[in-house]
């Protein structure tokens, strides 16, 4: 009697242990899986740390911006929602809103009037990843902060955590605001109730293509490997004065602006 009870306890505790380790490791294993959402093909692009440098001087007309924004939003089936619950991955704003607390008095008129492209910074220390309770937002080895739309519970903690307003929440059904006939079948549309943002075009990099906005910018945006001293981004960073958004918060953005 006594022995069988002890045996039972042994088995029971072992199975509890097994179950809990599975629970504990399941997350990590799955996170690794989702990290390879897009399998790189043979000619896929790789980097130690992807980064972007935007030459804000080169963007002159509204069309310059529109080309990039449309390319991005088309490639990723981003809905156009005409109210405060909008979704946007790439957009523009004025200097004082893009670089608050970095404004200066009596700036040149050109700078004051200039528009700046805004997107997720793919931060080195991303608060959005830190706060996400499900690992739906995670950082890849190449520095890209990616998302698993199927795991996101829509708590919006990441939106509160992001100091750059880079994230959008699908308050309603985004598909109501996409022209389903013009959809890009190679990228998933999202469902209601999840958060989304720019993904540095991981799906294009995996196929050996540059990000959609970089391609559409025709030389006004540089993109490359920050860890490679020979890369184009490193060259433009060395040759130009650049700033990043909100340096004080310590996130180390991967998007640089030539002013």
């Amino acid at each position: 009697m006594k022995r069988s009870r002890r045996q039972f306890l042994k088995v029971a505790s072992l199975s509890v242990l097994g179950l809990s380790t599975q629970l504990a490791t399941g997350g990590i294993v799955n996170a690794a899986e989702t990290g390879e959402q897009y399998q790189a093909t043979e000619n896929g692009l790789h980097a130690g740390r992807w980064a972007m440098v935007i030459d804000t001087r080169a963007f002159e007309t509204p069309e310059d911006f529109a080309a990039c924004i449309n390319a991005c939003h088309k490639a990723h089936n981003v809905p156009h929602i005409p109210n405060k619950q909008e979704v946007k991955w790439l957009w523009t704003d004025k200097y004082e809103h893009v670089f608050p607390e970095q404004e200066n008095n009596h700036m040149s008129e050109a700078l004051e009037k200039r528009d700046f492209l805004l997107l997720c910074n793919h931060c080195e220390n991303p608060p959005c990843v830190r706060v996400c309770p499900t690992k739906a937002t995670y950082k890849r080895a190449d520095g890209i902060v990616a998302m698993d739309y199927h795991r996101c519970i829509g708590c919006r903690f990441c939106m509160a955590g992001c100091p750059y307003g880079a994230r959008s929440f699908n308050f309603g059904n985004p598909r109501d605001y996409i022209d389903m006939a013009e959809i890009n079948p190679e990228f998933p549309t999202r469902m209601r109730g999840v958060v989304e943002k720019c993904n540095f075009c991981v799906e294009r990099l995996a196929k050996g293509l540059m990000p959609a906005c970089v391609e559409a910018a025709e030389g006004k945006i540089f993109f490359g490997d920050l860890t490679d001293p020979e890369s184009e981004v490193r060259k433009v960073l060395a040759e130009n004065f650049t700033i990043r958004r909100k340096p004080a918060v310590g996130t180390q953005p991967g998007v640089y602006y030539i002013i």
Partner: protein
Amino acid sequence: MIEKVLKGSPKFYVWIAFLGAIIGLGAFTYLFQMKYGLAITGMSRDVSWGFYIAQFTYLVGVAASAVMLVLPAYFHHYKKFKKMIIFGEFMAIGAVLMCMLFIMADLGQPQRALNVMLHPTPNSVMFYDMMVLMGYLVLNAVIGWVTLECERHDVAPPKWIKPMIYLSIIWAFSIHTVTAFLYSGLPGRHYFLTAIMAARFLSSAFCAGPSILLLLLFVVRKVTDFNPGKEAVQTLTKIITYAMAINVFFFLLEVFTALYSGIPGHAHPLSYLFAGHDGHAAWITGFMWVGAILALLSLALLIPPSLRDNENLLPWSLAILVLATWIDKGLGLIIGGFTPNVFETVTVYTPTVPELLISLGIFGVGALVVSILWKIALDVKKEAGTL
């Protein structure tokens, strides 16, 4: 003991039916949220948390406040509180349940809520928050139920309950501290980014929670033979007064740092809350001023002993206090955290009617749970002659 619910006065059932109607209204409204998503709320890309999360935060405080009875009773052997403790514990259960419902109501994909446990993420404060809230619910349910059962059979509570009670005391502090950490660790939100957020949360909880408890107990005293006891009420009121004084003091500390340092990011949320923007008062401005005045008024009514011990005045003082703390934490906190937004521009948030109705429904659930649990406690006490 659960059978006690089945034997009640007609008045009790009318009350239950009333709560049922409120819950029904909330549930019906929630159907729309299920169909259209959080689009039916006033939240936006810029103000991505709103009324739901604010109520969650306030109620975690209410839940934690039970400790203001348990701590004096068990650490200082203050016997006069023993009679009231069960009501504090049962109120905490109702409060935690409401917290959970408010979180569920706020999720974009509520059916995936368990992902928080399936993919445990120890670097996220929300992971801990979920854990400690559940733990607190279990602790209070077990402690409350077991002690009541023992009271009913007129036996001493089992020995193992003591360590659980001590644990629940520490636990109560932890739930609200963790809730504060949800906010105070966010780098881009100036109004949240303050080291005394947890201290502010605890102080406001420890005045507001016991005040709500006392107000409810005054109602119970009216409709039943239960009497919390004059001395117990006076002692608890003193605790409330100290906590409120500290709460107001902490808020003024925030105001000083924000305004005297002159750092724009720190000053902007306060100036938005109290002065609006671009020369226009926001709707919240009126609330904030009313809240500030009520907070001072409650102190004026609670600090002088002659006024504090005046039993006719006390319910009013407490109600004023509850309103003041609710405006601070249930409205101002979230709005100030998200306005101005990270671009230093203003997007106004106003809760919508469906949002408020769903919240009302959740408050109804809390009231129902507390009513039922309190009825059980009252009936047991009546039978045992410990009323």
